[in-house]
């Protein structure tokens, strides 16, 4: 038998508790950061002041066009030189969050552009202050429109989180690599890790598709 069931049973609990916990932390941390930062970036990019909107747009374009892995290296190896000390997991969350903020800001932008013009005109006709138009009229509608796309990016962040294992975070894949290197046998741990990603990602994407249909866009 090529497949070693005994060993699979031995490593499964460890992968699904310790590894899963770190993967979930990285995913949720990265997603929260990306969703919040993305919203601010989307607002800054709409700024009337070109000295604000242009540089923010350029930086985001740069982040989106370069690999997450290299960005992780920058945060992990270069920032400590400037006196910023963090755990590897924290570094990874910041890297993921920054990288995906450049994607989510586009999602919010599309959501904001999709708010009908009449809503703006009505809010102005009601003499609402500018910040109030944003907070209580435009953003609630824009964010609602953006939800399915944000859900897709949550899944994307979940699938990209194994890259953190390269900067020594011990998530599901990091743990699988560690276990594999002990016996120099990667078949079982890697297959289990891959199946685990499938088992989460496929139902999640079905859920997002359903959400998309329910919100009607």
């Amino acid at each position, binding site marked *: 038998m*090529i*497949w070693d069931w005994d060993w699979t049973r031995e490593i499964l609990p460890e992968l699904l508790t310790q590894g899963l916990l770190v993967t979930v932390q990285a995913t949720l941390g990265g997603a929260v950061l990306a969703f919040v930062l993305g919203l601010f970036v989307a607002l800054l990019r*709409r700024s009337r002041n070109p000295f604000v*909107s*242009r540089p923010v*747009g*350029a930086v985001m*374009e*740069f982040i*989106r*066009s*370069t*690999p*997450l*892995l*290299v*960005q992780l*290296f*920058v945060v992990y*190896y*270069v920032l400590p*030189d400037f006196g910023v000390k963090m755990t590897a997991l924290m570094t990874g969350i910041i890297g993921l969050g920054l990288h995906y903020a450049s994607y989510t800001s*586009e999602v919010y*932008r599309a959501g904001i*552009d999709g*708010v009908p*013009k009449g809503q*703006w*005109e*009505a*809010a*102005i006709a*009601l*003499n*609402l202050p500018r910040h*109030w138009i944003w907070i*209580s*009229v435009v953003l*609630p509608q824009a964010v609602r429109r953006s939800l399915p796309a944000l859900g897709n990016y949550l899944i994307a962040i979940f*699938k*990209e989180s*194994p*890259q953190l294992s*390269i900067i020594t975070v011990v998530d599901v*894949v990091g743990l*699988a*690599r560690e276990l*594999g290197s002990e016996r120099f*046998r*990667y*078949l079982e741990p*890697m*297959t289990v*890790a*891959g199946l685990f*990603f*499938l088992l989460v*990602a*496929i139902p999640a*994407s079905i859920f997002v598709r359903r959400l998309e249909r329910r919100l009607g866009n």
Partner: protein
Amino acid sequence: MTISPCSAELPGTFGEAMPFLCKGAVITLQATLGGSVLAIAIALPVGLMAMSHRGAVRAVARVYMEFFRGTSVLVQLFWLYYAMPILTGFQLDKSFAGILALGLNLGAYGSEVVRGAVRSVSRGQREAAIALNFSPYHRMRYVILPQAFIGMIPPMNNLLIELLKATSLLSVITVADLTYQGRLLVNSGSDQLIVFALLLLIYFLFSYLITLIMRFVEGRAARMVGRDGPQGRPRRAWRSPRPRRPVPSVEIPSVEIPSAETPSVEGAR
């Protein structure tokens, strides 16, 4: 006198790093090219299969797409390179395993693009081709695909940039690509700030190059079916095109309303 950007005569860290980074950049470009050829070769048939009338054919396409979109590239890469040899006794060359993993992964995303683009060709085109007694093959080849092709290019552009970015993962299975060379330089004591900045810059330039090429292709494809090419600046350029702010330019004079009659925010929602 001009000095090549890959020359070792450049001052300081640049001279130290650039010869190695150029070597890595060539590998990165090769992997991107190989991966994209494979991805497109997979995406076209699988995308069309996903729209087949036969349930079995559709199921095969869907299983492939869901499988490769459901796991991360890194896991697929590890699996192909480290796990599959144990199962099948067949060890792939590392660059080949890398290109295979990238091509299979991006091919799954590409299939979705192909499917969407073919579906977005208006129904009248298909009906007209049927009315003209085109065979299903000719219908697809001469009527539907040339039009669908234009719609595929902008999302394909994004996918190719994703592919370029994903090639950095090949460094993990010790393919000597750009990222690998960069890490090697940092480990051997080069100034890491400069090396990583150069890495990011080179990747950015390559992304921009992909966008320029795809824009050119899009213009050609559009003209071939008699439409105008893309307008304005590149889609992934510095600033994405943005419609004017939907606020009327006329300032509405603010009127003092007694607080009791202020329209509630709830009404505006």
